[in-house]
């Protein structure tokens, strides 16, 4: 039976390590989001000291969400947000997770075992968020804290956002190295082999 958690960000390592594969999570507090590979490259440059981050990422919850941000006189407004496929960022995520000690990575499609290993080291989980959930996710927005790298197209910007009741999200990689995506891919390959055996005989 899956446990339902209500997390208030920032979360500490012990709380993150209490989350198990398959648990449901609702999130309150500040998240950081971007849907851009160029953005991740800039984060890597910042790790090397070649660039300034628009705001600190230590212990952050990094969401692979694209958003439409508009610059109003009273400040930035986010019109909508929705996830992108995290596997596109597989090559860069282990280094980012370790460097900043990220506590949460969230998106759709999952991450590979190299990221799961980094998560286990620092105490971080991967949460799956509904794709095609723009209206629901956007309803959880409470306040735009900061919008960085505004020279990029909107969904590539690095946005810090306060949310309330975002979810339910599901824990798909826990901080003990269990990767739900890898487990299911192995299962699917085994079942495919069985199905093909049936076809052959």
């Amino acid at each position, binding site marked *: 039976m899956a446990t339902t958690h209500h997390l208030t960000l920032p979360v500490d390592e012990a709380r993150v390590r209490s989350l198990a594969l398959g648990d449901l999570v609702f999130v309150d507090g500040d998240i950081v989001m971007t849907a851009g590979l160029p953005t991740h490259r800039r984060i890597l440059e910042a790790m090397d000291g070649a660039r300034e981050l628009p705001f600190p990422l230590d212990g952050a919850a990094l969401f692979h969400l694209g958003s439409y941000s508009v610059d109003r006189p009273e400040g930035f407004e986010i019109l909508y947000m929705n996830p992108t496929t995290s596997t596109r960022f597989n090559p860069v995520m282990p280094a980012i997770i370790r460097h900043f000690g990220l506590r949460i990575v969230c998106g759709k499609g999952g991450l590979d075992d190299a990221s799961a290993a980094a998560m286990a080291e620092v105490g971080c989980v991967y949460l799956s968020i509904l794709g095609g959930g723009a209206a*629901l996710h956007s309803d959880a927005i409470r306040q735009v804290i900061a919008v960085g790298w505004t020279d990029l197209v909107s969904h590539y910007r690095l946005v810090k956002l306060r949310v309330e009741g975002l979810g339910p999200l599901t824990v798909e990689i826990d901080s003990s190295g269990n990767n739900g995506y890898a487990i299911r891919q192995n*299962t699917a390959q085994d079942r495919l082999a069985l199905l093909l055996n049936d076809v052959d005989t």
Partner: protein
Amino acid sequence: MAISYEAIRDLTANLYEWSLKKIPEDAKRALETAIASERNETARKVLAMMRQSARRAEESDRFVCSDSGVPVYFIKVGTRAEFSGDVKRAIRDGFARLVETIEPPLLKHVTDPLTNERGHAGKDMPIVSWDMLDGADYIDVTCSPKALGSGRWAELQIMSFPTIQEIEKYILEVVVRSAAQQCPPVTIGVGIGGTFDHCAKLAKTATLRPLGSLNPEPKLAAMEERLTAAINQLGYGPMGTGGDTTALAVHVEYSSGHGFTPVAVCFNCWISRRTRARLYNDGHVERVE
């Protein structure tokens, strides 16, 4: 009377907007069926959230998904249809006007493949396929915008005198390679035969068939049922987070060809983006989907 530039411009733009804010009725029914039959508790919750997301977007006139994709149209021109203005220009201008006027605005998804720069316009946009309809006094327009999440997992392989078993093996392998990253439960379109170009189009248009409709050809209907059952045994489930509901439907189309047989496989994500209408010579619009 004749079909005007303005009528085509406005209809193609409207079809795009409608497709972003409301999922098709048959997709809603397919979700209900899946919620009733799914055995995994978390998967049922994910499916119920999909239903809720589609409702909320429709009620509040917002996008279901932020990836509004690139505009893709399939247009059948009736042989008795008449035109009083430019057709291709009308479609281009319709998209440009939509970009200016739609609320909420569209993100920049049109990508120059040579520079990876993104914008709201580009070479060959919108993407349009043309066909003819004998005797009709209208044009039949389907809009099926393609987003990255569901677009990038399509594959095509050219085989030589394959058996049905070899074709089905390839289709299942493509599904496993995609590893449920295309926002399942998906509609899977399969094209078999013809030529490289024709086969890819068959697969894509197969995703546009009413969800769960069986091919009238008994051999293909049996293949569709067999593949749907097999794919739903793989265990990926909604959003790839486990469950019985990975495919809402598998639709297979075929064409005769030479002994080389292309097999194409493509995907539509759970929101099944698709709208369709007919525009008549007298200017009236009939919504089909």
